[in-house]
């Protein structure tokens, strides 16, 4: 490491926190000092799921158990710290796959007890928002902001008034997550898992306007009950039906056009609802997060249409957008800085933890 400047010293103040994230198929261990990212180690079991075409919870849980110890050791070495130096341990309590979450919860509790350090149990979705503050060389995120979090496990639209105290769930998917829809449509097209990059590749030469696939929950009649919710199950079925009709007519399948048009339907509905939320809530800021943000078309369309509507878009680096432990550590560091007490040791994995519960089991 180079000699520290005064600015570095300010940037490197704050609690030293190790975060553990095991809500889906990534075993994430992150270490932060305040808002400074020291390491972001991710072990993914994605390859093990590829032959099943989607995340298999039991396979993910087994992989977490094996990945955890080496990932912690790697993260500590990378951060150049000693575990004894930590001010706190943080862990995702939910939402996510219960069996997968439990691995992280059990490990985090034992690590905290072995080190005699406080433990912060936090919300995975709010962690995705906290990822932004670890982004180097940017001004701190301003609040309020609308946040669109899209991955294989969740698709959520949030109104964030304050990171540590006030997050509102506007809407979420009522069936498949957007990432899942990519996986399922990829399978329909005979493409391998994970579907996102495959659909992207296939869509390169395709026309996004070739086929008008439905935009889920976007009709006027959906406004009342599902104004901010998403649905991708009907879209997937619609793609399958379109292909079957072509097959029945013995016509070739224009894979590029189907991929591009499907992707456009997903991107359109995500961006439209997110920007409508910005407008209705009077919030000219949109934060994107989650693994599906890796999709360049989504980022491009969001950035272009947001600019047209006077909304500023924030996109953390992709390594912080996918599920990771650094965002969990970063959220805990903010909670500590705001004076929150640690969590008790009595909490579990909550697969449906509401976003309003930013921290779980805060000590009395």
């Amino acid at each position, binding site marked *: 490491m180079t000699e520290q400047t005064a600015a570095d010293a300010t940037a490197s103040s704050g609690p030293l926190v190790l975060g553990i994230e095991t809500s889906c198929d990534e075993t994430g261990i992150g270490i932060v000092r305040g808002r400074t990212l020291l390491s972001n180690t991710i072990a993914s079991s994605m390859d093990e799921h590829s032959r099943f075409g989607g995340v298999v919870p039991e396979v993910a849980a087994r992989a977490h158990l094996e990945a955890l110890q080496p990932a912690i050791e790697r993260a500590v070495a990378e951060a150049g710290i000693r575990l004894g130096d930590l001010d706190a341990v943080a862990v995702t309590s939910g939402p996510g796959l219960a069996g997968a979450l439990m691995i992280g919860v059990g490990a985090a509790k034992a690590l905290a007890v072995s080190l005699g350090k406080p433990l912060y149990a936090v919300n995975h979705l709010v962690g995705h928002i906290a990822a932004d503050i670890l982004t180097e060389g940017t001004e701190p995120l301003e609040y309020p902001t609308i946040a669109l979090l899209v991955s294989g496990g969740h698709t959520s639209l949030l109104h964030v008034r304050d990171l540590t105290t006030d997050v509102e769930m506007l809407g979420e998917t009522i069936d498949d997550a957007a990432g899942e829809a990519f996986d399922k449509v990829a399978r329909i097209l005979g493409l391998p898992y994970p579907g996102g990059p495959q659909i992207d590749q296939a869509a390169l030469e395709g026309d996004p306007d070739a086929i008008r696939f439905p935009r889920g929950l976007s009709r006027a009649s959906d406004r009342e009950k599902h104004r901010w919710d998403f649905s991708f199950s009907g879209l997937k079925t619609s793609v399958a039906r379109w292909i079957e009709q072509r097959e029945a007519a013995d016509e070739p399948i224009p894979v590029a056009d189907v991929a591009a048009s499907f992707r456009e339907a997903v991107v359109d509905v995500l961006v439209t609802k997110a920007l409508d939320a910005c407008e209705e809530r009077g919030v000219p800021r949109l934060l994107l997060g989650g693994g599906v943000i890796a999709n360049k078309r989504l980022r491009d369309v969001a950035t272009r249409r947001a600019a047209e509507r006077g909304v500023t878009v924030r996109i953390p680096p992709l390594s912080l957008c996918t599920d990771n432990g650094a965002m969990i550590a970063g959220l805990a560091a903010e909670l500590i800085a705001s004076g929150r007490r640690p969590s008790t*040791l009595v909490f579990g994995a909550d697969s449906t933890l509401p976003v309003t519960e930013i921290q779980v089991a805060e000590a009395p």
Partner: protein
Amino acid sequence: MILAVDTSIGSTAAVVAPDGVVLGHAESASPRGHAEVIGDLLVAALEDAGVVAAEITHVATGMGPGPFTGLRIGIAAGRAFAVGRGIDVVPVASHDAAALAHIERTGDGGAFAIVTDARRRENAVSVYRGIDEHGLPVRISGPELHPQAADLAAILPSATVIVPTGTAADDANPADAPTSIIRAADLGRVAARVLAAGVAPGADEPLYLRSPDVTVGHVRKRVST
């Protein structure tokens, strides 16, 4: 000083001295909620023993067999505790702990089988006969799965005593009662003997005994009618 953790049946933690003396013990018989209770159990076991985390030199982890989700929590906790302290894990087959307890309780010198519920109408079965020169139970087969409906007496070597474990203790006859859970204290005592003897511990892999449930190669379902 060994910290032992087992969540293969119930959740239990214990602190055992290098000479095998049990210094502290904590348990929760609830078959669910392993993740909820594990932190408090570790703290309770340490407090019961009157030791602090820094005095722990080894962690013994019960590797199962047991229901996957619960079993893993103890292993994850044991491994994480070891990482935190920079110490070694001593993996122990959970049935070994029950076997040691059985031998000591009954003085059984013959063959016996530790039988635990593996769910889905199957039992996990390990057969032991006596103890070796290090005081470790000698496992001669298993753990392996058998249908609960199967007649174990007909399958196992003749005169094998069946020791059901993980069922409610028989209060009327405590001397004959099977252990209601696999106790971390027994697990820690096995680990103490392994360490004292300098023999290789068990494999550091969970004894799942079953592959994950998954269907491979989804066939596309027709959606058109």
